[in-house]
């Protein structure tokens, strides 16, 4: 990737130089013609200029192709191998509209609803407060957002959402930036102790800022003052607000696209393999490979039997043996039937994972 960026610089330089040269030689040709020189000389100049420009263009073309090869090498993925169609434009548009509403972008939602001829759902009322706070945060006004977070301290705390501290922290930084050192100190005294349990290290780090309050830009604290921090907090606020309303904490579209970013390269590879067998990946009952998604995208328990490697179902549920190990019903019955050599008579069998012995009737159903 770094070499790609370096090469794009080189390409830019080459392009600037070469195209300027072409223009110069064309300008020269024009002045040759303007000077009413001998026709043979003129024709000679035309041929020379054409040749020169053609060579410049060819060189550039070759370089761009090389750069293209580098892009292909860096981004090796053939998206054309996954061409199945997806015919749900109205449902998709509704989902996108909800996404804009969720992200606190009511204005874009309005524009999109009009363009896509959708009705704007009546969530405005529900989200009114959220939009007002989010807009205030974007204008760097934090007072009412902080009030909201303080009012909902207990619920935010029990859900482990660090919004309140993040807002106090942002307000603290804002006061420092405005040079209101006394107010910043008072703010820290009033709010930070409440969060000492979870955020002591961060609080200690923040308090060190007073040493640099007169020369922030050159201090180690300068990265804390990005313009982006307001947008980050605005999003955090919208997300916390939705969670407390009982909605998903992230926009479902964001989650799905995030999962897709992980799945797409994997499915692409699988898809081209399946195509060789004249199969479509999207027509299968189950994806042929596992897509690793991060923990925050695992929403349901999945039990894969360690013996048969199959996912448990209602017909073949997970069963716990007395030792606490869990296998699927089918595997359990096979174990009990003594399919394995060395199984012990009288229906007793050994757990495949520990020395524990059990009989079939000891096994108990579990519900994850």
């Amino acid at each position: 990737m770094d070499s790609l960026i370096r090469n794009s610089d080189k390409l830019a330089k080459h392009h600037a130089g070469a195209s300027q040269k072409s223009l110069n030689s064309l300008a020269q040709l024009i002045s040759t013609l303007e000077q009413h020189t001998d026709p043979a000389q003129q024709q000679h100049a035309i041929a020379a200029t054409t040749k020169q420009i053609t060579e410049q263009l060819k060189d550039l073309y070759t370089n761009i192709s090389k750069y293209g090869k580098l892009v292909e090498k860096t981004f090796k993925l053939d998206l054309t191998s996954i061409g199945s169609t997806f015919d749900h434009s109205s449902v998709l548009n509704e989902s996108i509209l909800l996404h804009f509403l969720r992200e606190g972008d009511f204005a874009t939602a309005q524009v999109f609803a009009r363009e896509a001829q959708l009705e704007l759902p009546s969530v405005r009322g529900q989200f009114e407060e959220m939009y007002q706070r989010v807009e205030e945060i974007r204008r760097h006004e934090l007072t009412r957002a902080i009030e909201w977070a303080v009012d909902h301290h207990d619920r935010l705390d029990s859900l482990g959402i660090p919004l309140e501290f993040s807002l106090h922290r942002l307000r603290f930084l804002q006061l420092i930036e405005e040079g209101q050192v006394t107010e910043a100190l008072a703010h820290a005294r009033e709010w930070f102790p409440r969060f000492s349990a979870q955020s002591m290290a961060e609080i200690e780090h923040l308090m060190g800022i007073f040493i640099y309050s007169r020369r922030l830009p050159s201090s180690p604290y300068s990265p804390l003052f990005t313009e982006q921090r307001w947008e980050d907090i605005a999003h955090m606020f919208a997300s916390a607000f939705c969670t407390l309303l009982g909605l998903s904490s992230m926009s479902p579209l964001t989650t799905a696209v995030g999962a897709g970013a992980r799945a797409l390269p994997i499915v692409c590879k699988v898809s081209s393999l399946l195509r060789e067998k004249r199969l479509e990946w999207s027509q299968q009952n189950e994806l042929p490979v596992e897509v690793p998604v991060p923990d925050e995208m695992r929403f349901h328990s999945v039990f894969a039997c360690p013996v048969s490697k199959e996912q448990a179902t209602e017909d073949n549920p997970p069963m716990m043996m007395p030792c606490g190990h869990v296998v699927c019903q089918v595997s359990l019955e096979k174990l009990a039937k003594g399919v394995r050599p060395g199984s012990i008579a009288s229906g007793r069998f050994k757990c495949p994972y520990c020395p524990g012995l059990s009989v079939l009737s000891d096994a108990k159903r579990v519900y994850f």
Partner: protein
Amino acid sequence: MDKINVDHMLAIEEPFMKAPLEQLKRSLRQSQKLVERETQQVNSAISSMVNNHDNLSAAEVNKTLGELVERLQTLKRKLEEAKQEETQLIRRSKQRATDLNELSTFTSTTQPEFQRWCRTRMDRILIDYMLRNGNVETAERLIENSHLEHFADTSLFALVMSTERELREENSCRSALQWCVENRSALRKIQSTLEFELRLQEFIEMIRERKTPDAIAYAKKHLAAWSDTEMPRFQRAMTLLAFSPSTNCPPYKNMFDMSRWDHLAHQFRMVIFQLFDLPAQPLLHLLLQTGLSALKTPACVSADPTEHNRNCPVCHTETLGKLAKDLPLSHHVNSNLVCRITGDKMNEDNPPMRLPNGFVYSLNSLTDMAAKNDGKVKCPRSGQVFSFSDAKKLFIS
């Protein structure tokens, strides 16, 4: 903490990286053609002046030379415009690479910078979707809000949209044909029949208007050239002369059908995407299909709503769940257990505990509950109350 698979994350951005390069190549090719054509014409104008030398007055020679100079000046202006556009495309390509490269600086998916990067990616993907669907104002808002001017191939999609509209609504091949002529060699390389189809349509329209002599002249001029590769279709086109628009004879009835215009519009879009190495579908479609499939579990499609999880996109049965309806379920070779109370992962550090009724929750959640309720725990799914000491630890290998 989850590591970020940079290669995979970058892979899906390929179309964004390729589009400006293909546009660059096209611009160079066009400049090349322009230079060749113009210089050749100037050259032959000079030649004919030389040959005609005795019959031309000095004033006439001056006038012609003046015209030629003007001609070259126009060429120069066009090359300057091309240069500007190319400079912008190269700059755009670098900006895209630089933005994407930020990814390599992140260490965890929970980092706010990473989440910000993902939000921008979302906007990028939505801009692509909006531009492809002609929702230009929404696209413009997103571009402005997220400062993504360099990530939007606005002019390319504008060309697609306006040409499609002309085909569909005005039933005119003008812009589409002009584009085909400009890109003839590239189209030949991918063996596209788009130009033939467009010419055929113009021919059909002449027959529809009963301008038979015009149609024959047009066929001679524009369709005959395709007889090598498209002979059967060329013959069929000529046979159309024998039929009237009200015919019921199937192949000819179809040729007169106005829905051909929609097919042409679609074909134009597919060809231009192919030429610019863009996926036929918006990236959003590809990501949602694969992403929803990777998240889909039997619980999502269960009729029992208590199986659903509000954070799971597939469980939103009225919106994204509908899109996932026909998609494959995710595949798991290993167990993934999620506590129904906290949503936390259950593993060795936070093992699953089975209550006497069979329902399983994480140790942490039950410990918390027991601490607050005198050692009693309540199963949220059945409402039954048990003693914490009756919960049995499970081992998932």
